[in-house]
């Protein structure tokens, strides 16, 4: 799409666009290019010299069981976060859409977690589930369930999933609510006159019409679980116990900044970039679909 009427100037558009281009050039494309280059290089033990090693870094990564495990964990983590987050928010949105009284109060309270930083969300949930002082831990203990996410892999995973879902509920909720409110009331009324029960109306009308929203949220939630949960993990489990909650993003950080494995970390960055590219493309295909729908 183009404007019919344009301003004419040889230099002005460049001046206008220069700040953006400078920032993306220096802080996006240059580092991303460096990451790609480094992923084909290896530094010697003292960091004195680098040499080209082709695909060795990638080969090493995929031969490394801890990396493959991290891949599997990330997949499981994102499926759990996206699945649980979408299901819970959908239920809340369906009921919030039905009611008139106090709707604003519920909505206002439900959007608060969006404003909470991921790392603070992690701190709050650790506080609830701390093995020594956590309130939830205490009452779970009373029920005969022993909680210690510092020792138990599955509990550690459960903790970061809960914190991540909690943080993302607001977002999903708002999109579902907007989706529900854009469904024409006439459809629901017609079904109601034909004698469809509320359950039937949800199942046969609202849910199918929400499928574009649901698909969109699925992609967004997976992106969120992959990249934005760094703070939650760093505060709650720091990738532990062992490596059991070290998802891909956390591993890039650990290997790059803690273990100073530059080539390996760069190769991991490149793989992450490929994942983002795939997810972005999927998301934009969805946008095209929505236009037809």
């Amino acid at each position, binding site marked *: 799409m183009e404007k019919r009427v344009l301003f004419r100037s*040889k230099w002005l558009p460049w001046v206008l666009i220069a700040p953006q281009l400078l920032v993306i050039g220096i802080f996006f494309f240059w580092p991303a290019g460096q990451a790609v280059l480094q992923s084909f290089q290896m530094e010697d033990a003292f960091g004195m010299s680098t040499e080209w090693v082709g695909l060795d870094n990638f080969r090493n990564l995929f031969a490394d069981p801890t990396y493959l495990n991290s891949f599997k964990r990330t997949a499981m983590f994102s499926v759990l976060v996206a699945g649980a987050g979408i299901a819970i928010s959908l239920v809340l949105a369906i009921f919030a859409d039905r009611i008139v009284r106090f709707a604003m109060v519920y909505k206002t309270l439900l959007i608060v977690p969006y404003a909470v930083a991921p790392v603070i969300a992690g701190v709050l949930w650790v506080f609830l589930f701390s093995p020594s002082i956590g309130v939830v831990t205490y009452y779970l203990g009373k029920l005969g369930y022993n909680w210690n996410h510092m020792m138990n892999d599955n509990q550690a995973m459960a903790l970061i999933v809960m914190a991540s879902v909690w943080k993302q509920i607001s977002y999903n909720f708002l999109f579902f609510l907007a989706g529900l409110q854009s469904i024409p009331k006439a459809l629901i009324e017609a079904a109601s006159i034909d004698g469809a029960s509320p359950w039937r109306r949800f199942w046969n009308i609202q849910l199918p019409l929400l499928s574009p929203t649901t698909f969109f949220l699925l992609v967004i939630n997976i992106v969120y679980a992959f990249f934005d949960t760094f703070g939650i993990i760093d505060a709650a489990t720091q990738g532990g116990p062992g490596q059991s909650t070290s998802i891909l993003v956390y591993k890039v*950080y650990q290997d790059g900044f803690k273990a100073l494995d530059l080539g390996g970390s760069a190769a991991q960055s490149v793989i992450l970039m490929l994942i983002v590219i795939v997810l972005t493309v999927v998301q934009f295909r969805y946008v095209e679909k929505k236009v037809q729908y």
Partner: protein
Amino acid sequence: MVDRNPWLNFFSHAVLVLGVAIVAFPLYLAFIASTHTADAIVQSPMPLLPGAHLWENYQAALFGSGKLGSNTNVMHMMWVSFWVAMIITVGKIAISLLSAFAIVYFRFPFKMFCFWAIFLTLMLPVEVRILPTYKVVAELGLLNSYAGLTLPLIASATATFLFRQFFLTVPDELVEAARIDGAGAMRFFKDILVPLSRTSIAALFVIQFIYGWNQYLWPLLMTTSEDMYPVVIGIKRMLAGGEAAVDWNIVMATAILAMLPPTLVVMLMQKWFVKGLVDTEK
């Protein structure tokens, strides 16, 4: 409402109350913890009703150096967070407005190339290029500075697209009218385009302020000097001593303080917040 089934209404409220209670519980407990002494919290189970030490704890957090054992306090960290968030927000909006203006209202060589270059940044979030970006910033000597904390986060493909979409809907007659009145490009931008965009600007402001305030990974790498810690980093540092050494009452008071500005922005500007959220994801 189609039907008035009182049971279903009751059930709806019950589900929502339960949902809100679960969502609010971690926040409630954080607040409770911030009103007790450190000793009361390590009692098992900790009290579930507010205590009497609210002012002491918040004062200790805001002005005392506390467990950080250093030359900084939460007051200062909030100040840093505020400036980081403001610079990121205003910077993003400013450079996105300018570049969208250039892309929509001018014809110049490599225009599509620039457009796609901006678009591609969507695929390069900080998380996937941490180490090389750190190196660039270190080589530019920007570690521990506001410039280093904000510049790498200031480019925004989503904001540029949002403004571009909006500019495309602005009637061409306005440009013609401005031209006839003798207004140049910048005059048109300043006096017509920016005022017309104010709803989009307000919506973006809310979203980006929260984004900037809540940044964690980038400041974690960038800041080694305590007086440049944003408050989000400060909280994490307070927990570094291991569970036993933590003053949970101060940590939770700090957490509440750190959540306050973005929460207020979201709640008070709810209309803009929802619009911003929906628009930036389109």
